[in-house]
């Protein structure tokens, strides 16, 4: 049973047990334009909630990807390093960035669900 949460920095995290899979939203990839490069955190590295975890670059912008939760990186998606275009094609599915083992599940409480995130995006434009 998995649940997906969203952040105000346009990341999503799909949590299953104590592991969350993190990526950027469709809105984010649209705003970036064609993604040309991705830098992922090393497996084993610790991340903290709201801290820098990865970098995603397009032709016109470079954005930090923040970790929605604190924990240890347990997986990184090399597929998007080899083919950055995947981030534009399937941002909320196959083009996940990294997996993190949560150290504090209560951090999820402050995150948005899909409906709240969609409303947030609508409110921004």
């Amino acid at each position, binding site marked *: 049973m998995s649940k997906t949460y969203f952040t105000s920095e346009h990341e999503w995290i799909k949590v299953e047990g104590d592991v969350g899979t993190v990526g950027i939203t469709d809105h984010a990839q649209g705003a970036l334009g064609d993604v*040309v*490069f991705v*830098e992922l955190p090393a497996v084993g590295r610790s991340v903290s909630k709201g801290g820098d975890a990865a970098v995603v*670059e*397009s*032709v*016109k*912008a*470079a954005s*930090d990807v923040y970790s929605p939760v604190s924990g240890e990186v347990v997986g990184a998606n090399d597929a998007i390093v080899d083919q950055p275009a995947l981030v534009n094609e399937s941002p909320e599915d196959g083009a996940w960035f990294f997996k993190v083992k949560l150290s504090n599940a209560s951090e999820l409480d402050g995150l948005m669900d899909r409906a709240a995130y969609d409303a947030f995006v609508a409110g921004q434009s």
Partner: protein
Amino acid sequence: MRYLPLTAADRRSMLDAIGVKSVDDLYRDVPQAARRDKLIDLPLSASEMEVERRIAKLAAKNLTAATAPMFCGAGVYRHHVPAAVDAMIQRGEFLTSYTPYQPEVAQGTLQYLFEFQTQVALITGMEVANASLYDAATGTSEAIAMAARVTRRTKALISGGVHPHYSQTSEDSLRYTGLEIETLAPDPLGTEDLLGRLSSDLACVVVQNPSFFGRLNDLKLLADSCHEMGILLVVVVAEPVSLGLVASPGEMGADIVVVEGQSLGIGMNFGGPGLGLFATRDKFLRQMPGRLAGQTVDQDGKRGWVLTLSTREQHIRREKATSNICTNSGLCALAFSIHMTMLGETGFTALAELNHARAVDLAQKVGAIKGLKVLNDAFFNEFAVTVPGSAAELVEKLAAKGILGGVPASRLYPTWPELDNVLLLAATETNCDEDVDALVSALKELV
């Protein structure tokens, strides 16, 4: 006023179209306290003839290599620049164009930058080069910052053979970046022990080849030792012509190479503008500062070039940029590239051979003068000589005789009394036999 096309009638009609009485109305946001009714106290406009006269008067007050035999080096070298270079860089489409942000109408700039990047990679023996930085001094600073980013370490070691302007600029410019930079004592005899000072908390070691004192070194062992400890080797080259004859830094194992490009295409110009060449390995590409021209195709499938990987740069990353650099040294890069193109493999290697031959001849003659001793075993086109007494005083006396006889080390190292008697002499293809004879006789007389 010859540069201002608007006539009084134009101004009148434009003010009417805008709907104001005078241009003062357009400055209404300037606070009263800052408004002026008088002209600023400076000379009024002058004709072209008059300006030329005034500047020529200043030029006439200098004794230069245009008329005097000159053997000064120490990071700036006199070489013959073919007339074709100046003719081409003065074409308005090169001279008066901007950074190629609209690539469809800047393919001239982008193609020459691509060619330039290739030439720099080839002569340094490295995999990739950028479209230039301001000079080698700031380039060295950028190289150290880059090494820190790549290795995630905060210490750097600079050899005492590196040009003091490069080490000082690096230390001073990076003072607030959390990096600890140590520069070793000046090393005229090549006796410093870099290998013994390596430690695995170093991001990089910076060496210069030929060194500031003209010494040539094989860097392979140093490179290997650095790599065993995860340290990057930064090699700086003050005289790019040396790369036509001496094994390249890339061949010797350098990770980052910085070159002062002034020697080719640009001229001395009292030390500026310069040209920073910067090259590295493909794996460090994204940490490299500066602009990059990259190949691509257009909508019709035709090959063309664009500025690329710009997301590392200040206009996008802002405070997280790899550097704050905005301008490169565009026209200087073009001049360098045209000069290199004129030289080619044949001309560049021949030029280097000529320089070395001239310096070997000079060293032999100078070394034969009683009281003078050449310190270098190996050198390219510049070497260090000890003289009796003060080298600076000797240089003044030579100048009084109309000879620009080298650079005293004390000019750049005023607080090292052990260097007071060290004189740096450079000889290039521009020094003819008469120049050498004049210097040698003057030295014999004065020493």
